């Protein structure tokens, strides 16, 4: 080779090397380029030291404490939709961009603040109190939790639905087109061949409040019942939805998430609190309680109210003197290692809480470690003279003989001929210390344990006192036997009982989600019984129902929002066959007439249960008791939230033959509304109107006011209003010419009629009702108005409510609601707000309700039973331990909720949910920490990562809830021909509800496994098996 040629080749190679270099060096080169142009290779920063940290919303003079607002920002108070806690928050807004900058707590708000400020504190002063001036802000904080902080991204999420969508493919095909709001209304009202799949019946013709929907069963009510309304829960706007559903459209069928949230718990506590209508419940008075027992609820991991509960718990175990025990299959954040012996976690096998509760009750009764004096008070008079806020029915006598016509009822004065039946003075009968039968209202004290016969009009009957009955139930098994069942050592149970009772009336038992098991109702009843036996109701340091809320949406002092001309009331049987005894149905009568046994019914009729979505949906599509024709769902997602529903329901819902019309009102496309025919875009988070209430345990009365603190981002109606749940129902009502919507439908205190044409017509008047209730709020000052960022709202206030109301209404919004002062929390050693109904050792309603399968009465006191199916057969009779060795349960994520997965700032902290497996089980099934395992149940199979440790009960498998999504951004949708791509990271992890299955004792696949008494979805204690999956990349 000659030299030139060689040099040429070398040169070429050198050039190649240099080219590779250039390719490899593009990163630094790019940075250099940027550096050259901008002086930095990154994003320009606003400040040398603080980079792009947010500009402070206000400043505080270090000497005087004077507050100076940042003119570019606005702070406004509204509500957080980060979870059902619905905290009041303060939102920092960039005025110029109408953009939310960051969120923290409203200092006036009991759900957010340590000790909420007096409503009369000027707003600027409140800001000073949140600052570092004299450490005030950290001596008394008002916070937003991680989700509450991250949730602002929902507003700007690219997964938001901003236009009215109509499906263009078959249901669930994820294909949509945008349509104008008015077209959507036209179509759903008139019906027609809307999807090229045949005729769809419109809402106009469904809305028939006269014609019976089923002439053979007239009790089912009118055709209008064939519209099913569904909602997650009351986020502050339910009143408007219900006005439409019940009182204007006239459908009976409305359901919210209660039945797959915590219904078994709520009913169990309702049974104890003698409230089978609203199912009241209590929470510990954290600030003063000395000992708390959390069974199946985990304050600070979840729990309602999440943030307040977490904060109170943290303070109580740190600076307070509370001690607590958590009984839970899983280790949660509530068990604090740092708090040392202030708290302890005891693990339990899922679904066995009745055993634990009955064991504790047994110990208390046998060892006479109960509030004898309190329980011995038979009636109001006795309670009053003893200085108690209420009494219990421990001493009341129950008619025991099954063949007595009043079997299961309390023996009343009329039964022994001392009063007119049903009369006011027909009081229950008790046995006084002399052994005489007397009126519960006459005796100062009555005997607790009674079993005797009594001569009644119907002959001699056996009667037993409630407490006697309870003891009988409790002593069916020994503590050792109970211990065996629940997997907690008998000595541990005894110690726990002893400890619990050693604090007298300053002890509290609390429960919630853990009760969503196959024995949940009685477990919840039993756990609440501990509070009754300890006498901790209504006591400082005991358990509290709370202060309740100011209701503005009823027949208020300024405007009547409950009644209107033409208002109707819903009629007929709920789709879920609840609140209605089977024995009153035509079907029952036909059976009896035909001489057949009416039992079992075709499907459960639950007289005690409220209307429940868990039955509504499948019943409505399957047609028993009747079929629905249309459904409007607002913000609900049962197909993600109810165990086993998707598998059972999806195909049925996809078929337009089963249901003609499904309209969803929502901010997002979720696992349920992806099957909708239309999606109406709704306001999100801080763009909403509404009034939300308090949670139990919040000792003072309160109502949160929310208003669109930033402009809603979705499409507008032709009239220029944002399309939302509010405008949807208002416009739909008007289009259907329903009463209650349009002009002249709201009556003012002065007799004048006002229109309901826009959201604020309703909400601002409700605000006036609240602001003017009892002692009206003072007028807001100019300074308050500026400081609380409500300037943009003022015009609307002034043009909607009267001049006299405007000041107080502005005051209400400038504080983010109306809040009773802290002083009202207590009244000496008692709570300021008490629960005065007689507490039920025995619940008469429960004890006299007939199970529609067996035809037998329910047990009226807490009792032990294993998880069971509708026919009463036990879980393990169908799904043996040999085949399904583990019991899966779920617990809420402390970070996520059911719809938070789209929030990047939460995903970056915890991107998925490894499942908890006990190391002994892991060993048994050959699983190592970090292995991919398959979890199989009778209803489904999922893949998960195993977190092997000591953090779960042996024999149980724990799944954190909030992951394993299929929608909310996980899947792709075609909208107007363009693909909106899904993000696979949103689908990471598992959802235990995919392991749900149908009750094998119900007619082929007609229902998921539901708790018998309540119809609550069962998500705790699902039988599963696991195996390592090796063949996964």
């Amino acid at each position, binding site marked *: 080779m000659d030299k030139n040629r060689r040099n040429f080749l070398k040169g070429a190679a050198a050039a190649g090397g240099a080219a590779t270099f250039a390719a490899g060096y593009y990163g630094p080169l790019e940075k250099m380029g940027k550096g050259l142009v901008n002086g930095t290779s990154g994003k320009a920063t606003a400040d040398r030291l603080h*980079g792009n940290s947010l500009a402070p919303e206000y400043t*505080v003079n270090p000497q005087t404490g004077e507050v100076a607002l940042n003119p570019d920002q606005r702070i406004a108070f509204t509500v957080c939709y980060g979870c059902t806690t619905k905290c009041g928050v303060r939102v920092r807004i960039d005025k110029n961009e109408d953009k939310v900058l960051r969120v923290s707590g409203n200092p006036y708000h009991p759900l957010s603040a340590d000790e909420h400020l007096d409503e009369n504190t000027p707003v600027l002063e409140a800001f000073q109190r949140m600052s570092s001036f004299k*450490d005030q802000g950290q001596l008394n904080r008002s916070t937003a939790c*991680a989700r509450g902080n991250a949730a602002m991204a929902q507003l700007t999420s690219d997964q938001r639905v901003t236009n009215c969508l109509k499906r263009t493919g078959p249901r669930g095909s994820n294909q949509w087109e945008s349509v104008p709001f008015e077209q959507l209304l036209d179509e759903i009202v008139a019906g027609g061949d809307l999807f090229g799949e045949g005729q769809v019946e419109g809402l106009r013709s469904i809305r028939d409040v006269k014609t019976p929907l089923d002439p053979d069963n007239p009790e089912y009510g009118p055709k209008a019942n064939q519209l099913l309304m569904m909602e997650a829960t009351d986020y502050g706007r339910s009143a408007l939805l219900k006005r439409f559903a019940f009182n204007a459209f006239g459908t009976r069928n409305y359901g919210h998430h209660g039945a797959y949230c915590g219904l078994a718990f709520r009913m169990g506590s309702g049974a104890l609190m003698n409230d089978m209508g609203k199912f009241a419940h209590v929470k510990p008075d954290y600030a003063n309680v000395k000992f708390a027992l959390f069974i199946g609820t985990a304050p600070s991991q979840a729990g309602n109210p999440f943030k307040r509960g977490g904060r109170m718990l943290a303070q109580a175990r740190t600076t307070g003197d509370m001690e607590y025990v958590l009984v839970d299959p899983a280790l949660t954040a509530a068990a604090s290692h740092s708090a040392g012996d202030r708290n302890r976690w005891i693990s339990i096998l899922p679904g066995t809480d009745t055993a634990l509760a009955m064991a504790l009750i047994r110990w208390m009764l046998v060892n006479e470690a109960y509030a004898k004096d309190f329980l011995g008070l038979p009636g109001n008079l006795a309670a009053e003279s003893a200085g108690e806020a209420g009494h219990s029915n421990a001493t009341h006598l129950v008619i025991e003989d099954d063949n007595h016509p009043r079997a299961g009822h309390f023996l009343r004065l009329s039964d022994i001929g001392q009063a007119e039946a049903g009369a006011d003075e027909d009081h229950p009968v008790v046995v006084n210390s002399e052994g005489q039968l007397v009126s519960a209202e006459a005796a100062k004290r009555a005997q607790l344990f009674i079993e005797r016969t009594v001569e009644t009009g119907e002959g001699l009957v056996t009667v037993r006192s409630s407490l006697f009955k309870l003891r009988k139930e409790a002593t069916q098994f020994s503590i050792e036997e109970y211990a065996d069942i629940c997997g907690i050592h008998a000595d541990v149970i005894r110690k726990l009982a002893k400890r619990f009772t050693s604090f007298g009336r300053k002890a509290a038992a609390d429960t919630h989600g853990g009760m969503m098991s196959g024995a949940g109702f009685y477990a919840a009843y039993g756990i609440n019984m501990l509070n009754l036996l300890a006498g901790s109701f209504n006591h400082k340091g005991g358990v509290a129902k709370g202060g309740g809320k100011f209701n503005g949406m009823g027949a208020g002092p300024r405007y009547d929002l409950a009644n209107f001309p033409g208002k109707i009331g819903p009629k007929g049987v709920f789709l879920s066959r609840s609140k209605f005894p089977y024995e009153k149905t035509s079907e029952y009568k036909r059976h009896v007439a035909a001489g057949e046994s009416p039992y079992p019914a075709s499907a459960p009729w639950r007289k005690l249960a409220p209307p429940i979505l868990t039955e509504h949906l499948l019943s409505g599509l399957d047609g028993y008791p009747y079929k629905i024709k249309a459904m409007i769902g607002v913000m609900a997602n049962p197909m993600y939230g109810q165990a086993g529903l998707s598998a059972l329901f999806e195909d049925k819902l996809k078929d337009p033959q089963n249901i003609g019309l499904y309209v969803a009102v929502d901010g997002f496309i979720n696992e349920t509304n992806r099957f909708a025919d239309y999606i109406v875009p709704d306001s999100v988070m801080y763009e909403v109107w509404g009034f939300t209430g308090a949670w139990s345990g919040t000792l003072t009365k309160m109502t949160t006011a929310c208003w669109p603190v930033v402009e809603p981002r979705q499409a507008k109606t032709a009239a220029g209003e944002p399309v939302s749940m509010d405008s949807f129902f208002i416009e739909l009502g008007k289009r259907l010419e329903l009463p209650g919507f349009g002009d002249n439908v709201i009556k003012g205190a002065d007799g004048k009629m006002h229109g309901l044409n826009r959201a604020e017509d309703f909400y601002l008047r409700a605000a006036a009702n609240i602001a003017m209730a009892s002692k009206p709020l003072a007028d807001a000052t100019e300074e308050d108005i500026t400081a609380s960022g409500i300037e943009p709202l003022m015009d609307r206030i002034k043009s909607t409510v009267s001049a006299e109301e405007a000041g107080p209404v502005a005051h209400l919004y400038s504080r983010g609601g109306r809040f009773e002062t802290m002083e009202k929390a207590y009244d000496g050693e008692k709570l300021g707000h008490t629960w005065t109904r007689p507490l039920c050792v025995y619940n008469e309603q429960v004890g006299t309700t007939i199970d529609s399968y067996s035809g037998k009465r329910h047990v009226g006191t807490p009792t032990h039973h294993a998880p069971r199916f509708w026919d009463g057969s036990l879980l393990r009779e169908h799904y043996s331990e040999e085949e399904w060795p583990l019991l899966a349960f779920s617990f809420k994520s402390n970070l996520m909720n059911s719809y938070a997965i789209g929030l990047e*700032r939460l995903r970056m902290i915890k991107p998925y949910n490894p499942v908890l497996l006990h190391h002994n089980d892991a060993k048994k099934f050959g699983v190592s920490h970090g292995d991919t395992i398959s979890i199989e149940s009778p209803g489904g199979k999922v893949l998960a990562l195993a977190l092997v440790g000591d*953090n779960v009960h042996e024999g149980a498998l724990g799944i954190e809830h909030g992951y394993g999504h299929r929608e909310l951004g996980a899947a792709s949708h075609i909208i107007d021909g363009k693909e909106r791509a899904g993000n696979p990271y949103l689908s*990471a992890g598992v959802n235990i509800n995919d392991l749900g299955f149908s009750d094998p004792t119900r007619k082929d696949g007609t229902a998921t496994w539901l708790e018998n008494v309540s119809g609550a979805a069962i998500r705790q204690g699902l039988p599963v098996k696991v195996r390592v999956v090796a063949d996964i*990349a």
Partner: protein
Amino acid sequence: MDKIRRALLGQIAKLTAGAALVPLSSIASAGINDQPPRREGDPDKRYAMLIDLRACIGCQACTVSCHIENEAPLGSFRTIVSQYEVEHEETGDVATFMLPRLCNHCENPPCVPVCPVQATFQRQDGIVVVDNEACVGCAYCVQACPYDARFINEHTQTADKCTFCAHRLDVGLLPACVESCVGGARIIGDIRDPDSQISRMMKEHYNELMVLKPEMGTSPHVFYLGMDERFVSRPDAKPAIWDVRDQQGEEIGYEFGH
């Protein structure tokens, strides 16, 4: 780590925490890797944080609010709360241990002297900051911090870390994480002011306070109450499972990896 060494470390952690209470004049000398003089900030103050772990519920409100307040890139943290499942050494009880981590604003911060361009420095009030207009992004300070408290901000391409929210402290507001602390665990303040909440609490709990990695000689100014010796240094624990899998079991990695 054996028990004796751990107990020793715990002891050192306490002593180091205690020593911080004796006000140090900022020792500056010019040897290689010695602390340069402090500059800017209020010379009469010394900011520090106390974290009462007994009150921490692990809610991560601090993590998220800090992230928003300070515009951190997704997946980078000025503060985060580690969560552990722990067995009590005596009782065998199992509980959750939450450990919020952030910059310790060390009295002897190893991150400062390494900086080749003096972009990162300690203010006279103890706050360690980065001048992002001077920073060359060499990441030396990131390596030098024993607490993983620093990172290169992928947006600004400069070193980033907790500033105790100096932009808020300086105008009389609380740092985002403190303001949002649901459990009320985070307490910030001037430890030269004997009346401040933090000073009072430090006095009250003098013997229980611990700091992280005392063996590094950094003299951290984030003090922990309710600390377990086992976590003072890198914990001997089964690590978290980090591979994210989708519903088909495929590994999909961490969405916000850098």
